């Protein structure tokens, strides 16, 4: 048996596959390639498979991680190629390897946030953004797991953010806390809309770029 990890891309159509549906999808992908997933013990055995940092529906990512256990004793060689034969459009495995580091050591997430302005970016937007996110406290409304609304201060979870502007687009290169608790980069757009509605974008798009541990080393 082996504990393996997949590094994969989720984009385009696949960005609309929900977390649960993605688990189901992978449960079917592995047997197609002859991999036998290990199952939990108990009355209703389920395959041992988990997604390290679930991606919100609609966002894309270059760096999703999925952990799984197989009955075979293998190191992951050739698995990426094999799985890529039969994945839905927009999913692509970059590599597969034995799990070396526990998922809890994943601490930071780099993402690209794009704000669309259909009528052109209002003058002063990037300055306003820089000012807004240099404050001590920027609150956004967020739904908890139990569907209640709470106020969240995004600043402590935001490690760095660089704003640039091009044509009808403002782009941010952000590094945020990944988990416990993490920050969904899309909330920066919500924060902007709430605090400075005159700069509210028409649409916000997020793509995860890279994962790091607490020291800022790439996490695999």
């Amino acid at each position, binding site marked *: 048996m082996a504990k393996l990890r997949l590094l994969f891309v989720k984009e385009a*159509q696949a960005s609309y596959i929900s977390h649960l549906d993605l688990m189901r999808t992978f449960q*079917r992908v592995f047997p197609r390639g002859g991999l036998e997933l290990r*199952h939990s013990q108990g009355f209703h055995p389920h395959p041992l498979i988990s997604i390290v940092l679930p991606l919100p529906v609609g966002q894309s990512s270059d760096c999703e991680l999925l952990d799984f256990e197989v009955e075979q004793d293998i190191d992951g060689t050739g698995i990426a190629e094999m799985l890529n034969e039969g994945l839905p459009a927009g999913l692509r495995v970059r590599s597969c390897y034995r799990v070396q580091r526990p998922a809890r050591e994943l601490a930071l997430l780099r993402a690209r946030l794009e704000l669309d302005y259909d009528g052109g970016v209002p003058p002063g937007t990037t300055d306003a953004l820089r000012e807004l996110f240099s404050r001590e406290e920027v609150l956004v409304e967020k739904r908890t797991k139990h569907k209640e609304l709470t106020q969240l201060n995004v600043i402590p979870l935001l490690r760095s953010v660089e704003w640039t502007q091009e044509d009808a687009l403002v782009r941010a290169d952000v590094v945020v806390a990944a988990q416990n608790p993490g920050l969904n980069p899309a909330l920066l757009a919500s924060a902007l809309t709430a605090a400075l509605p005159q700069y509210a974008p028409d649409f916000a798009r997020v793509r995860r770029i890279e994962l790091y541990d607490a020291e800022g080393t790439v996490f695999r």
Partner: protein
Amino acid sequence: MDKKLERILPRVQKPARYVGGEYNAIMKDKTQVDTRVAFCFPDTYEIGMSNLGMRILYGVMNNMEGVWCERCFHPWGDMEEEMRKAQIPLYALESGDSIGEFDVIAFSVGYEMAFPALLNMLDLAGVPLRSAQRDALTPLVIAGGTAMYNCEPIADFLDLALLGEGEEQIVELLELYRQAKREGWDKAAFLRRACHIGGVYVPSLYDVSYHEDGTVAAITPRDGAPARVRKRIVTDMDKAYYPSKTIVPSTEIVQDRITLELFRGCIRGCRFCQAGYVYRPVRNRSRELCAQYARESVEDSGYQEMTLSSLSTSDYRGLVELCDELEPFCEQKHLNLSLPSLRADNFSMALMERLQKGRKTGLTFAPEAGTQRLRDAINKNLTEDDLLASCRRAFAGGYSAVKLYFMLGLPTETDEDVAAIADVAAHVMHAWRESASNKNRGVRITVSTSWFVPKPHTAFQWEPQISIEEYERRVALLRERINTKTVTYNWHPSPTSFMEAVLSRGDRRMCAVLEAVHRKGARLDAWEEYFSLPRWLEAFAECGLDPHFYANRSRAHGELMPWAHIDVGVSESFLMREHDRCHEGVTTPDCRSQCSGCGANCLIGRACDG
């Protein structure tokens, strides 16, 4: 991805069903094909993708070189609203292109309540609803599926309907279409040729006249169209295409598993059952081939659940042997087999035990009626002893939940028959007391009743549906009789069944009603969320038609039915005989015990496989 779509998808429920890209979805280069088909299912993605017929014909059409068949489903209300607001026309999942630009828009229509969804899909695609408003050959709007055995209520909207099984006729039809396109025929010329393909029904080539009382006076073919259109079938199931390599949705659908079709048709001859008549004659797929397809499709899809499908799976000859053969494979692949449509009289506990590996959920049986007299009248050919014996075996084997399905309003039903449903439940309860292996777990018995809908091409096509008041009276009567806590009684106050009864035996004048109800906002009317009886009644009133004329009227045997020119292979005289025998309380043996001469074997030119 389309920018407009990117904006709206985050706002709708389950966006994955609107983007395509699933494993095994077929992508072709649109510059390299000459015929593009939008294969539409007038219901949601989750329902449509669960339909085996869709998967078969998707494969068949895409196997044709030069043809690209793509899928299209009816969006849920939130998505429809967003699409209309953003002016996104209905698009096919594979290419994302608007289906209004396709050569052929083909619908698979399994039930009458999907008619409004069909119209709404045309509307969302920006395609004129009526065939007569579409002068050009393209887009050609066609439809197949079980509901097309009486497609008169939507006849004005279709250019043609395909009757029966589509595997062969769709290929012939598309080839003729390509010829028409190459040679520049106009639509009328194409339709005049198409009506000679077996199973193709071109409604516009038939004039329908009516008596003063509203019944059909004559159905007259024009321009050389055949007087009767006979359905097409696949004569040899071992040569029929099976989609072993099929789309695996990336989001959960209703039947999220492999469907292995064992045979078509049914030997039973239940008099109320449209499927039992219109899928005749019985044709088996060989056990070897079933086993092969099972292996191939599991290996290709990665699914770990497979259903052995048919109208009555326990009637498949060699079912036990097939399961034996598949068992080691199932074991190795962690594959769960499920068997729907088991009959309570030949239900094998040993088989269920093996298939259900630990999970002993509930069992479902459909006695349909409470007394032996009524079960005989509808030819259910199931005795209460059979049912109780099966229940005892199930309870002894550790099952603790049984669901029992009945219909109210069956022909000849009396209050005594209704009350007897409660007795059946009580007897099942008693059977549990006698034979349960573990009484501590208790037992759950669920009785569900539905409101009987008489269907065309059945022995009950002449029968009235009981009124809603009478239906509710019978429900109340039964509810009074069920007074133990262990028996739960479910019934639907469903006015949908009334409208289903109206539409299923509707005539061509109803097209105006469909158009009116569409204008008033009818769409996914198979869903209670969207169905509105007042809207339908208004539409009927506007068109000067009485829905009760269609649902609640007794027809005489001589009456010309609106579907009289549609031949499903079963003779009308056989249906009349079955109808008479119902009122005489006489049963008809199943096709395996004795052939009753329904006539459907004329479709295969030999005795059927019953």
